């Protein structure tokens, strides 16, 4: 079989189309950058952010420094429990990336905390132990979703001794059975 060469117009047509699309991308990136670059819609918590660079640092990604520009100590103090405030303050001090636990671009209704860890002891545990943060007793891995371990701290040893077995791992979640109604 003898083949005909490529039509002469094929490459110029594709080159021109590519150029037109590039101009469109450039124009659209200024007007609506999320449509052209974002991997998904922002959550309802961040949907009113001014632009991509509000959270993303060029070539460094979503930066904790930009997160804390909004999520400051004051922000947590006004909106969160003392435990949550201390928890985040500790992580910021340790320079832990916020993206280790929080995600974005999963849609308006998405949960942005990876496997949200709830406090199984309730706020009561802080009153009973005199602590203000989960990290006073627990060691967490790089990601909050991993199972925490107990720290070798005086408060943990004291709980073990005073509870005569009740304060063993796995049982402390039942603490309200004995310490209910604000009893210490």
């Amino acid at each position: 079989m003898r083949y005909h060469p490529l039509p002469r117009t094929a490459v110029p047509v594709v080159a021109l189309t590519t150029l037109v699309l590039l101009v469109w991308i450039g124009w659209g990136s200024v007007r609506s950058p999320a449509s052209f670059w974002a991997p998904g819609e922002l959550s309802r918590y961040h949907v009113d952010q001014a632009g991509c660079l509000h959270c993303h640092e060029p070539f460094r990604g979503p930066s904790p420094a930009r997160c804390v520009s909004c999520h400051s100590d004051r922000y947590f103090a006004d909106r969160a429990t003392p435990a949550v405030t201390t928890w985040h303050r500790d992580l910021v001090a340790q320079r832990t990336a916020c993206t280790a636990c929080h995600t974005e671009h999963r849609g308006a209704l998405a949960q942005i905390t990876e496997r949200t860890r709830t406090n199984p002891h309730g706020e009561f545990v802080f009153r009973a132990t005199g602590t203000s943060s989960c990290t006073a007793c627990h060691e967490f891995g790089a990601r909050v979703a991993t199972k925490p371990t107990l720290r070798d701290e005086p408060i943990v040893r004291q709980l073990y001794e005073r509870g005569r077995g009740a304060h063993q791992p796995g049982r402390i979640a039942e603490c309200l059975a004995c310490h209910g109604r604000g009893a210490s």
Partner: protein
Amino acid sequence: MTSVRLRVLVVTVVVVAAVAGALIFEALLSLGETAPFGHTQYGHAAGWVGLVVTLLVFVYPLRKRISPARRWPRGWFRVHMVAGVVGPLFIFLHSGAHYHALVPILAMLSMVIVVVSGVVGQAVHAFSLSALNDQRRRLQHEGLSDSDIDAQLHGMASQEEAFRMWQAIHAPMTLMFLVFTLLHVAGALFFAGIS
């Protein structure tokens, strides 16, 4: 000879099955995870592997154009065909069925056009050559002269010639694919960070 339409259908079904396989595999890897596989470290690695493998396809056309007087680089053509299928399958694994931003969508669309035109064209070409040779042997066996055989095969060869259109799409669309792929990679590094 099987009809051209049937051959196109067979090749299309194989291509669709391969792509669907990659997408289903990505969906399985994403099951029970908070993030789609493509957004994980391994998903990004699949994208990089796909890119590197896909870039291997350019050795063949480059060698062909840089030294056209030399023998046709058959070995690199095989690399071209294998890398042109395996690389995009890694890209499908990387992307999954999660399409939002227009730049990666354009990169994906141009890749699909390049790959499909290449796979369908090459497969139809290979099938038709083998069908032509079979037919030639059959006619020779029946005792027809070479000129009679050529005359009988002319219609069949013309029919296959129509499939040359695939090359008019395949080669030029590579330009668009390269531009949008590089743009997508640059955008991902810009917004998600280099490390």
